[in-house]
């Protein structure tokens, strides 16, 4: 609960005992998230929202059936999301399994697109810490710029917050220069209070970004969950002077949904977060809907989905 002196990106981890554990009122949180969803994003703001959505996207493929060929195709799309429009910016990153990091690194070389890899026994995290850290180290050695790990939900739900914190700390060390994005897997935490507390622990342990979900279970990012995490980031920054990024993953499929998340981030955290350094969408299907909206804005008519590339 101690208020730490603000500093420019304080590098020290914040121990569990010094983190603020807040209650959350679910109804009021949901009401606020709903209210933010009533903002009407039109005209130039809508065009800007589409562009931000592309720039802040982690184009993702995380399937057992992934191959080098599929990852190459994904990397091409990441660099040139719209082959007919050279003004279309590249996405922020591609997100792949560790075994495909090398393929992706080579494919995006020379572009601004980063390579993110899920590591640490994704998506369950149910493996020994040594194995998980090894997984991370391998992905980093293969050239991953960013590592997406999952928290130890078993430890969290049984109340062993010190263990959760210590494991994230270890993962951060294993990342070296790579950036750490910590997945809370919100759908397994059971309440907004747990989501907020897990956010604080992940931030306290030095995560560069906190992320909603793996996309592998039914519940993933929703506006109230995103708001809950954004409020935690806001408070952590106020207390420690350190800004932390937010990544929303799972279930975000339309440009309109994305623009409402941008509203939520803007009005909760401020416009600084509308930047791929601080905010990401983890998605695959979203890109094509944004493309449809972009083409509509430039041509005045809707393209056929069949006019767009397939993943």
């Amino acid at each position: 609960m101690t208020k730490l002196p603000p500093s420019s990106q304080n590098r020290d981890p914040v121990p569990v005992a010094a983190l603020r554990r807040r209650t959350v009122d679910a109804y009021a949180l949901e009401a606020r998230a709903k209210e933010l969803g009533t903002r009407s994003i039109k005209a130039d703001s809508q065009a800007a929202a589409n562009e931000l959505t592309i720039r802040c996207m982690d184009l993702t493929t995380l399937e057992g059936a992934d191959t080098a060929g599929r990852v190459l195709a994904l990397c091409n799309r990441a660099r040139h999301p719209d082959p007919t429009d050279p003004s279309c910016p590249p996405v922020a990153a591609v997100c792949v399994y560790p075994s495909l990091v090398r393929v992706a690194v080579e494919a995006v070389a020379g572009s601004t697109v980063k390579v993110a890899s899920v590591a640490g026994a994704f998506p369950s995290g149910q493996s020994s810490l040594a194995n998980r850290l090894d997984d991370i180290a391998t992905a980093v050695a293969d050239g991953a710029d960013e590592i997406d790990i999952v928290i130890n939900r078993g430890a969290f739900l049984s109340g062993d917050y010190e263990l959760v914190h210590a494991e994230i700390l270890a993962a951060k060390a294993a990342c070296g220069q790579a950036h750490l994005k910590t997945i809370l897997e919100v759908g397994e935490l059971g309440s907004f209070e747990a989501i907020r507390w897990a956010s604080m622990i992940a931030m306290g342990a030095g995560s560069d970004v906190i992320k909603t979900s793996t996309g592998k279970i039914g519940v993933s990012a929703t506006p109230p969950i995103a708001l809950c995490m954004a409020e935690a980031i806001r408070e952590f920054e106020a207390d420690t002077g350190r800004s932390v990024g937010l990544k929303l993953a799972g279930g975000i499929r339309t440009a309109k949904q994305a623009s409402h998340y941008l509203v939520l981030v803007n009005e909760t955290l401020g416009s600084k977060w509308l930047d791929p350094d601080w905010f990401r969408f983890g998605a695959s299907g979203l890109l094509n809907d944004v493309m449809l909206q972009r083409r509509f804005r430039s041509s005045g008519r809707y393209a056929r989905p069949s006019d767009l590339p397939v993943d």
Partner: protein
Amino acid sequence: MNENATSNMTGTTGGAGTTGVAGVAKRFTEYAPALESRSIVTIRSEYGLWIAGEERDAEAGAAFDSVDPATGQHLTRIAEASQADVDAAVAAARSAYENVWRDMAPANRARYLFRIARLIQERAREFAVLESIDGGKPIRESRDVDVPLAAAHFFYYAGWADKLPWAFTGGVIPRPLGVAAQIIPWNFPLMMAAWKLAPALACGNTVVLKPAETTSLTALLLTEVLTEAELPPGVVNIVTGGASTGAALAGHRGIDKVAFTGSTEVGRSIRRATATTGARLTLELGGKSAQIVFEDAPMDQAIEGVVRGIWFNQGHVCCAGSRLLLQESIAEEFSERLQRRVEGLKVGDPLDKNTDIGAINSAEQLEKIEELCEVALSEGARMYRSSATLPAQGWYCAPTIFSGVDTSHRITNEEVFGPVLAQMTFRTPAEAVAKANATPYGLAAGVWTDNGAKILWMSQQLRAGVVWANSYNQFDPASPFGGMRESGFGREGGRSGLDSYVTLEDAS
């Protein structure tokens, strides 16, 4: 962790300027105007009174101007009812009561009310746009709150119309009162009309309704709905006008019931007038309601709740949470964070879908608000006012918070009826209760705490008609609303809302 405070991930961005990501973010966050089209409404140049199902001019030919508070521009001219017009309206209501409505099968009365509810829903956008043009409230609120709640009240009381014997049990028979005079305020014009009309009609009464002088238009649009619903002529009559019309109606000898929502001052004069006529009375008057935030409250949600509690509808809400009581241990942090939140509120054109705070309803009201702010400053209060830019035309007031005040300041005692919050602190629950109750009013209160026992204890101690726990300004037709002490008496909404419109006959 990254050395560079401005780059978190891996430096993917193009930096500042209009083409870099910061430029794109700026284009996004400025939220391009999202104006709701005015074309759905037709505002005529003149409106008459609505008596016995027909529009007619005022007998004396008198009329008054109505203006758009967002611009100060003239909107239309509306007939001003005199004593003779009020007589005619009351006579029409009496005739409809005795010949049609009182003895109609209750299930048939219900059908009319259901029809009205559905027609309001069908024309919801039209009502919402007109409400925002005429009264200055943000279209988001008229669209999402006022109009849906108006329809919901008709639906709710339509359901009661043929079930009154189950609302009043124990050897009594509920009978209608007769003709009800209903005088409503300018803050929720259509919604207040619905709150008043629906229970009165459901119980078998007929009505003469007087909308507020500055906001008559949605009540007049409602006459089209009543006509389309084929409501028998005279069951509802609408007389427009100002204070003299209201006085003629409230003191009329031919009415059986007065229901008034408005200021405590006018409420007092109506109570005097009805003392000599024998009409039954319910009053829903002013307030100076407290929002109490304990240190164990969910802070981020409490901030949003306080914002909703005071800045909803520009603070033109009888139950506005205009006094904020903060536990001392969190007061400083809460206050800082609240101000940061208020900076994000968008003040401007009521028809822009992104407007949070619209226009003040009238020049007169704006003057009253600013006058009370001046008084607060002269009494030594500290003022925070949002830096939002206000439109050049029309009547606007930026959200304002006064701190450094206590229960002896006028700003903590008098109803501002505007976007102005007075902030105080407390140390213990007992002190919070004492301060919250230190008012002649007693309409509403809000309590923010994570502790269930504290909520229950506080709700027993607070002298207020409504106590909201971890929320504020929650309205539902099934939930009774009303005040105590100088905030009035009688309840609207829920089963209790029927009490005001029946007399109970002994069945034995």
